[in-house]
């Protein structure tokens, strides 16, 4: 029986790949879960593109500062050692390759590491990009955290993205509710699968052709 990972379990698995001492930007949505599950043994400096390094957890109710918000516009706190800077400098950090890890959501990822996470083909909504493209091109490692398929069961890991690209050939690793996959010269290489997931089963819900690592294991979120 397939037991897909919960979003929190995927976040735990991502957290394991973030080394102590890293400078990390967590994209809006699923990626923000990562901060909640990183263990206290690691000191991670979280970056927010609106001008914060050293972001701490959400404030207690009633303690919110309406101007101290993260990129998702939620109230946050600042840790000792944190700092504020202006937007242009925040993007120097991103685009300039100073972040160790960027964790992003995705609509689609291609087997060449292309990322589509800012626009669908829906023309009824105005387009909006925010910092997605800067995050995708700049970090030393770009990790994608997403469900393996769309809500209606269509694959998100594809030979080529059909949605507008955010950036080409930037994704290093993808974490889904069903698997952990690396982007390699040969395309998607599956390193780990969720409990009960078979290679055939995973391939059936994936648009791109998968390669399975010889040492394929079952995901251990912790």
């Amino acid at each position: 029986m397939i037991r897909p990972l919960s979003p929190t379990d995927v976040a735990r698995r991502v957290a394991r790949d973030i080394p102590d001492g890293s400078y990390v930007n967590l994209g809006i949505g699923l990626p923000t879960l990562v901060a909640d599950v990183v263990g206290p043994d690691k000191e991670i400096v979280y970056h927010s593109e609106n001008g914060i390094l050293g972001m701490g957890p959400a404030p207690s109710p009633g303690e919110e500062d309406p101007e101290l918000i993260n990129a998702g516009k939620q109230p946050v706190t600042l840790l000792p050692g944190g700092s504020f800077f202006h937007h242009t400098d925040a993007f120097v950090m991103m685009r300039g390759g100073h972040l160790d890890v960027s964790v992003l959501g995705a609509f689609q990822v291609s087997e060449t590491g292309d990322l589509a996470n800012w626009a669908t083909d829906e023309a009824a909504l105005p387009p909006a990009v925010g910092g997605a493209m800067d995050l995708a091109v700049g970090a030393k490692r770009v990790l994608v955290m997403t469900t393996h398929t769309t809500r209606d069961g269509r694959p998100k890991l594809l030979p080529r993205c059909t949605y507008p690209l955010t950036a080409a050939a930037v994704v290093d690793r993808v974490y889904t509710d069903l698997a952990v996959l690396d982007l390699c010269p040969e395309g998607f290489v599956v390193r780990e699968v969720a409990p009960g997931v078979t290679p055939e089963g995973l391939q059936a819900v994936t648009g791109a052709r998968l390669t399975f690592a010889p040492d394929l294991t079952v995901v251990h979120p912790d």
Partner: protein
Amino acid sequence: MIDKRVATLAEAVADVADGATVLVGGFGNSGVPVELVHALLEQGARDLTVVTNNAGSGETDIAALIRERRVRRIICSYPRSAGSVWFEQFWRAGEIELELVPQGTLSERMRAAGAGLGGFFTPTGADSLLADGKEVRVLDGRRQVFERPLPADVALIKADRADRWGNLVYRTAARNFGPTMATAAALTVVQVREFVELGGLDPEAVVTPGIFVDRVVQVAR
């Protein structure tokens, strides 16, 4: 004698012309110069190009400017939010132009204007449809798109404290676009919480030196 303090919000925005390009600071609801935007609304300038990260939300500030048909064109990175109903309605009706710019490029284009540069190549967006029609060049082994400076007639920003020379410090993440916008506009107008004596700001900690500031008005919280 230099004294950039003005007494009223109305005075601060009195001469913004129809057709002006106006930079408006803020990210979400943090650092938005709400009172200055309302003064601009009252002042009546129309046919504006507004440069800002978001496209307003609810019924205040930028959303109100849009609702009152003062904005011909908006240049921003993220016009969509829970409350961006006025923008969305005008956009769907084809009554407002949108130039979508990646957030870092938006900031960097304003910086280029303030820094007197003619443009720059950036990898951001180079493989996306936002590079359509722009020069793309491979530099340092990656595709990069040529982006041009984004200067403006007026910047409206919010800071925390100022002295009469217009030196500014900000508060937490409300700093966001302020320091860059201040450099990019011919006229930079700032609302602050508090005035301090000249010399009352630590010279090592001034974020926006007064050379970039033209008018400062106090708005009590």
